Structures are given as structure tokens and as C-alpha cells.
């Protein structure tokens, strides 16, 4: 555990013990129940953010899991007489499984992101509410839990609920922190910025999303289970109202949804503000005043309270001491030889087909790249070059055909597995993770690429690759602060950090000026010298001829020529294709 981690764990433990002791001493019951409600909101908002804040899968259905938990506890305690604490486990498991089940179906559909995911989760809430309302789970009259015995963790029932709420809130915030520091968190953040790239860089996106969703839903379920006992009268109207899904979003946004502590802070602020004006005379205008205060806060701190405070504090700290970024870069990269992945291997594509709707993008493409070979892939626009890269890297699945790397079959595997076997790629238009620094962008590839590494190793190695590509001085810059040339090189650094055996380069030179092209070509050579095989898609013939050992020409999804660069480019068919005489058919 890092020093930061230990500090946070200590702080959470002290907070738990302190708040726990407070209850043991005997607070007036109101404070217990007031704080319980805030703890409950903290758990709900934080659990929501684990999926929706970290991974950006904006869920409008947190009420469904909360409600599932409430009704699990309500049903099990009343109909089956199960002890309350035991039902909490069931509530968590059931809600978690519900999340897992929904995720297992929904996360496979690539288009169900953004607002469509929000819609889907909202719809699921409606459906669940309707089922509960019209079946024996509730049926309409509500479930009343007054006769359910309350375990005596503390002397008073309110104290017990307070303690349960406290534990759940602390565990949830602790989990959110641990995830934020872990591979899972890193992967989720990457999914938030660009899910397809994350997958291609080796992040097991489906598994990670499922883990996050299950945990998020499970915690909401436990919170619901406790809350059923708290309100003691569970009705569909209250349980599945718009309040829970709306408030968890508002709280997370207010506190900062991408920070582990943000939702908790937002929940505390909004939760407490509900009590700000409960006095009978000023209730209506008081509500307006609270709303106005919320508006002011978010207008002044648009990225959320916690990130804003931390940012301000950091700026303050930075102003006090000179930047050290460059030094770190030298220390990390200096003297350490960077090595690509293990044994060189050949990449083979055999009879690969791919269609999109009615358009046949690849028609039985076969090609091979020997270990340590540079193969240039050329062809007119729309000939299927990028599609081939997408199919090899696993972004698309081939309709037919076999792709292999050495003895491993690639076709049929998920993109992150393919990345793990040592295939990495760059994008023609660089697709860095927008909220990651240059260093973190490369570190992510080092973490998830072939040869999994710990976070610290990955960062050290990432520094090395930044140096290798000449970006060391830009390590702490965010992608939008980099120019195109730097972003292209960042793509290369990422691809290399994954320790590939084969790199698929998609038009790395396009858009660069002549001086930049020269340095890029040199860089590709250096990469090759390390024993990596390269598939080189490029329009710039000078570079193709200079770098490639062999050339493959694609046209309309078919390989029309292959061989020595100069011979191939002189072949009549290739010339015809390039001059646009597409009537020439084999």
C-alpha cells in the first residue's frame, strides 16, 4: 500500500472509531438518525460513482438497486422471519446480481453508452417498480416492518442503524478509494475517456465494467436493506421515486464524481441541506434558498467541490516549490535499457473476411509478417487497411478466417487479450485518454499491455518510453496541451510501453511536417531494432519504401500485390489502382 493509501486508510479508521464512539456514548437519537441518513446518502452516491463517475456510465437507475435491497430485506424479514442483519447480505447479493445480470446483457452492446445507458437503467427502474407493485412482493399496500426485531449492536435501535450506516459509508468510501488507486480504477478511468482504446490497450473492459456495476449495485442494495428497517414502512411510491437516482447524480456532481471522496462530500452537503430549513414558517422559501446556494456552488466550482479544493491546494503547493517534472524523467529513464516484449513472433492472417452491413471491407485477406520484419501496408482510401488493423487488434471480430501470433490464435479473442499477447497499435488520429497526463497515458499501456506490471513499475517504464520518444518534458501535460506531432509520438510511446511483439502503425506520419517525418522514421527504425515486428500503414511512399522490407497492397478488401517494395510499386495493377483505374479486374 502506498503512503497515500496508508494515510487515507488511517483517516477512515479514525473517522469510523470516532463516529462510532460518539454513538456508543449516546448521542440524542436525532443526531444518530440525521447522521444515518447522511451516511446512507454517502454510500449511495459513492457507490453510484464507482461505475458512473469513474467509468462514465451514467446510470439513472440507482433507485432500482436501492429498491431491490429495500424489498429484499422487507420481504425476507416479514414473510420468512429472517434476521435483519442476514437479510442485508441477501439484499447486497441480490442487488449485485441484478447489476451483474443487467451489465452482462447491456455491456455487450457497444452503442449502449452515454445517455442510452442512462435511459436503459431508468427504464429498468420503472419495470422493476411495476413488477414489485403488481406482484406479491408488495402488491400495493406496502410492507410494514415494525414487528421485525432490531439487533442490538448498540443500546438504541437508532444507534444500531447509525452504526450500520457508518460502517457501510466508510467501507464504500474505502472501496472507492482502493479502486481509484488500483488497476481496476485505472481501467475504469480509461473506459471513461475512450472505451475502445482502453480495450485495445489491454484493459478487460467488460470484466471491469461488470465488477464496477456489481459492486455499485450491491452497495446500493445493502443501503436499501438498512433503509427498509429505518423507514419501517416500505412502499413502491417512495422506494422507486425519482429521488434516489436524481440525488445521487446531484451529490456526485456537486462533490466531484471522478474523485473517490467527491460523492461523499456532495452527499454530506446536500443531505445536511435537507435539514437547513425544516422550520414550518420558512419551509418554502428555505427550500429555494438551499437550491440557490447549490447553484452558486456548482457555478463557482464547476468540476465539483473536492477537485476544486484539491486543485487550489495543489496550485498553492506548486507555487511554493519549483516544478520537478524534468528531473523525475531523467532519473527514471536514465541508464535503464528499455526492452520490448518477449520472443519475437510472426503475425499471420489467413483468409480474413469482414463486412459491415452490405459493405464487404475485407475479402479473404492473407498476409504474414515475420518476426522482426517491417511490412508496409498500402492501398487507396477505403481499401480496408484500417479495418484490417481493427480486426487484428480485436476491435472488430473477423467474420471468417484465422489470425495468429506465433502459436497463439488471435481471432475470436477479445481485444484486451490480444493486447496481452503482444499486439499493440496506434491510431491515425491520436486517441489519448483526455483526462490522463502524457505519463499516465503511457503508464496505462505499460500496466495493461503484455507483461502486466505494478503501478510503480509501469510509471517508471512509462517515463522511459516518454524519453525514448522525446516527450519526457511533457510528462505532466494533458493531451489537449500537446500539439499533433507530440500526440502522434505519444501514440507511439503508448504502443511501445505495452511491450509488443507486433506493432500496427496506422499512418503515424500523416499531418507531420518534413522535419517531424524524418524524426518519426528514425524512431520507427529504433523501434524495429529492438526486435519488434511492424505492420506499417502509410500513404507517404518515401517512408514506405525507406522502411519496409516488404509491401502488401490492398484494394477493395483484397490483397492485389505483395513483395519487394520497389517491384510491387512498379506492378501494373498497383499503378492502375493508384491512378484510379478501378475497371481493371482480376
Amino acid at each position, binding site marked *: 500500500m502506498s503512503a497515500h493509501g496508508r494515510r487515507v486508510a488511517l483517516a477512515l479508521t479514525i473517522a469510523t472509531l470516532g463516529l462510532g464512539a460518539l454513538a456508543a456514548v449516546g448521542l440524542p437519537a436525532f443526531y444518530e438518525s440525521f447522521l444515518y441518513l447522511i451516511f446512507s446518502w454517502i454510500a449511495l452516491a459513492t457507490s453510484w460513482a464507482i461505475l458512473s463517475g469513474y467509468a462514465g456510465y451514467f446510470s439513472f437507475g440507482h433507485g432500482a438497486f436501492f429498491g431491490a435491497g429495500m424489498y429484499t430485506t422487507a420481504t425476507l424479514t416479514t414473510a420468512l422471519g429472517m434476521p435483519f442483519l442476514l437479510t442485508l447480505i441477501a439484499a447486497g447479493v441480490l442487488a449485485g446480481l441484478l447489476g451483474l445480470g443487467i451489465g452482462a446483457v447491456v455491456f455487450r452492446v457497444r*452503442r449502449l453508452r452515454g445517455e442510452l445507458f442512462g*435511459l436503459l437503467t431508468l427504464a429498468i427502474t420503472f419495470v422493476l417498480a*411495476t413488477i414489485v*407493485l403488481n406482484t406479491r412482493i408488495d402488491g400495493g399496500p406496502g410492507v410494514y416492518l415494525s414487528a421485525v426485531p432490531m439487533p442490538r449492536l448498540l443500546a438504541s435501535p437508532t444507534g444500531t442503524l447509525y452504526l450500520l450506516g457508518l460502517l457501510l459509508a466508510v467501507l464504500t468510501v474505502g472501496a472507492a478509494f482502493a479502486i481509484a488507486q488500483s488497476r481496476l480504477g485505472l481501467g475504469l478511468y480509461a473506459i471513461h475517456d475512450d472505451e475502445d482504446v482502453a480495450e485495445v490497450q489491454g484493459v478487460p473492459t467488460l470484466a471491469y465494467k461488470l465488477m464496477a456495476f456489481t459492486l455499485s449495485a450491491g452497495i446500493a442494495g445493502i443501503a436499501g436493506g438498512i433503509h427498509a428497517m429505518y423507514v419501517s414502512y416500505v412502499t413502491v411510491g417512495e422506494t422507486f421515486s425519482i429521488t434516489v437516482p436524481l440525488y445521487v447524480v446531484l451529490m456526485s456532481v456537486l462533490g466531484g464524481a471522478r474523485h473517490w471522496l467527491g460523492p461523499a462530500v456532495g452527499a454530506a452537503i446536500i443531505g445536511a441541506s435537507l435539514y437547513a430549513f425544516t422550520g414550518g414558517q420558512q419551509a418554502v422559501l428555505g427550500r429555494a434558498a*438551499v437550491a440557490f446556494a447549490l447553484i452558486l456552488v456548482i457555478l463557482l466550482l464547476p468540476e465539483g467541490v473536492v477537485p476544486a479544493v484539491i486543485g487550489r491546494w495543489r496550485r498553492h503547493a506548486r507555487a511554493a516549490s519549483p516544478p520537478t517534472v524534468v528531473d523525475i524523467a531523467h532519473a527514471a529513464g536514465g541508464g535503464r535499457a528499455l526492452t520490448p516484449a518477449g520472443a519475437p513472433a510472426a503475425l499471420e492472417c489467413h483468409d480474413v473476411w469482414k463486412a459491415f452491413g452490405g459493405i464487404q471491407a475485407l475479402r479473404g485477406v492473407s498476409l504474414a509478417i515475420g518476426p522482426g520484419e517491417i511490412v508496409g501496408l498500402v492501398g487507396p482510401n477505403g481499401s480496408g487497411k484500417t479495418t484490417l488493423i481493427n480486426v487484428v487488434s480485436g476491435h472488430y471480430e473477423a467474420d471468417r478466417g484465422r489470425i495468429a501470433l506465433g502459436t497463439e490464435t488471435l481471432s475470436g479473442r477479445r481485444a484486451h487479450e490480444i493486447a496481452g499477447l503482444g499486439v499493440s497499435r496506434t491510431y491515425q488520429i491520436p486517441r489519448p485518454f483526455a483526462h490522463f497526463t502524457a505519463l499516465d497515458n503511457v503508464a496505462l499501456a505499460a500496466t495493461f499491455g503484455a507483461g502486466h506490471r505494478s503501478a510503480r513499475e509501469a510509471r517508471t517504464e512509462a517515463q522511459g518510453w516518454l524519453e525514448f520518444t522525446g516527450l519526457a518534458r511533457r510528462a505532466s501535460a494533458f493531451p489537449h496541451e500537446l500539439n499533433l506531432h507530440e500526440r502522434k509520438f505519444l501514440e507511439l510511446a503508448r504502443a511501445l510501453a505495452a511491450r509488443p511483439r507486433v506493432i500496427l502503425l496506422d499512418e503515424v506520419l500523416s499531418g507531420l511536417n518534413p522535419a517531424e517525418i524524418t524524426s518519426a522514421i528514425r524512431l520507427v527504425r529504433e523501434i524495429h531494432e529492438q526486435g519488434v515486428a511492424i505492420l506499417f500503414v502509410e500513404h507517404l511512399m518515401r517512408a514506405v519504401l525507406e522502411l519496409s522490407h516488404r509491401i502488401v497492397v490492398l484494394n477493395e478488401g483484397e490483397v492485389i500485390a505483395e513483395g519487394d517494395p520497389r517491384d510491387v510499386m512498379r506492378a501494373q495493377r498497383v499503378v492502375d489502382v493508384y491512378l484510379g483505374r478501378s475497371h481493371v479486374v482480376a
Partner: protein
Amino acid sequence: MPSATLLGQSIVSGLLAGGLYSLLALGLSLSWGLLRLVNLTHFALALLGAYLTYQLGHVFHVAPWLAAAAIVPAFFLIGVALHAVFAYFRVAEFASLLVTFGLAVILESLIQWFWTADYRRYETAYATMSIRVGPLFIPTLEMLACLTAVVLAFATWAWLRFTYVGKALRASAEDPAMAAAFGVNHRAQAFLLSGVSAAYAGIAGTYIALIATLAPSQIWTWLGVVFAVVIIGGLANPIGALLAGLLIGVSESVTMAVVTPAWAPLVSFSVLILILILRPGRV
């Protein structure tokens, strides 16, 4: 098995209920899709429009269409003013949810301050009128609301599709930097759009006053279903919002007629979930 008349009548009723959903969804869809603002204030504005219509009609005896004639330009200005705030603070998509939620709560409080929390009902002579077509009855007001939704949806579609302003807005939504490079003055058009969206809320409000019962907390009753309509229809797609509203309305009302009313949300939203999962491209 329900009679053909019952089935037909329920389809009519669903279409008309759906028309009102669409009317509410239209403005929301525009500001979400083109300005990236998830505008919860829209619901509060619609209800404010309804209360104003009630006040003008019930207390001052101003005919609803005259009320609408006053409300629509006033709301346009409110929309412009709102956008001035959003633009000045550069409110992002996420933050807009919070800001507009706060504004909606403030409006709700103001409505309750002026009109109390008690129910208000605007009784009009034409509230119960309807047109008879064969065995079916088509309620006049709801039909007008639905027709208004249709007209506005197509007008908005044409506006976005064929005018310079519309094209510029769509271009800016897709790539603000590129549109700016081509000299598209996104900011001026955003004000226009925000005004139009608020004006739509005013129109919806007038119909709500005539058709429904008013209570301040009703701001939130429309939220779920209208959100669904906006997203099913596709952001910034007026025709989509129209069709989505009608679809949800009809599927709910047919379930109400054929099975049992309480199961209605299950059917319409299960259909929605299936569409989303099986044919995500269609949405």
C-alpha cells in the same frame, strides 16, 4: 378480449397522451442535443406556464390562446436570460443538471409561494369537448395539444434542416471548434435556441393548464417519462421525439385497455429495453 371500440379508443387516448409527452420533450431534446444542457428547468417552466395560464384565465378571464400569446414571448426571453447565465459560467453537461435542478426547485418554491400547494384546476367550457369519429371520440384539447406537437416537431425539424441557423447549430453541436473556424457564431444561435426551447415549455404549459390538474410538485411527475421520450427519440431530433412520445403513449394505453392499467409501465418500458438491446442502431 376488449372490443374493437375500446381498443381504438385506447389507441386514440394513447396517441393524444403521447402528444403531450412529445410537446414537453421537444424543447428538452433541443437543448440537450444542441447545447449539451440537460435542462431540468424545462419542467418547472412548463408548470409555471400552466400556472400563468390558470391565473390569466381563471382569475383575469383571459382566453387561453391570448394567455399563450403573452406567455410564449415572455418565456422566450426567460430562455435567453437563462442561457446568458449558462454561457457566462460555461456550464458543462453534468453541472447543468445540478444548476437546472436548483432552478427548478426555486421555481417550484415560487409557484408554491404564489399559488399555495393546494390543487388548482382551470375549469373551461371546452375541457370536456370532443369530436366524434364513428364510434370513437377524440377529445378536442388533447387533439390540439397533439397537433401542436406535430406541427412544432416538423417546423423545428425543418428549421434545423433547412435554415442557416439550424445547420449552424447542428454543426456547432457536432464540432464547436470547426464550426467556429467557419465563422459560425455559436453563441448568438445558442441564445435563440434556448429561447425557443423555453417558449416550447410555455406552449406545453398552456395545454397542461387546460388538460391537467396543477400542484407545485407536479414538476417532477413528468420527469421520468419525458426523459425516456427525449432519449428514445434521439437528442436534437424533433421528429424522433414526436414518434417516441406517441409510441410510449400508445403502448401504455393499449396495455391499460387490454391487460390492466397498473402493468402499463412494464409493457412500454420492457419494449424499450428490448429495442435498446436488440436494435440499438434503431433508437
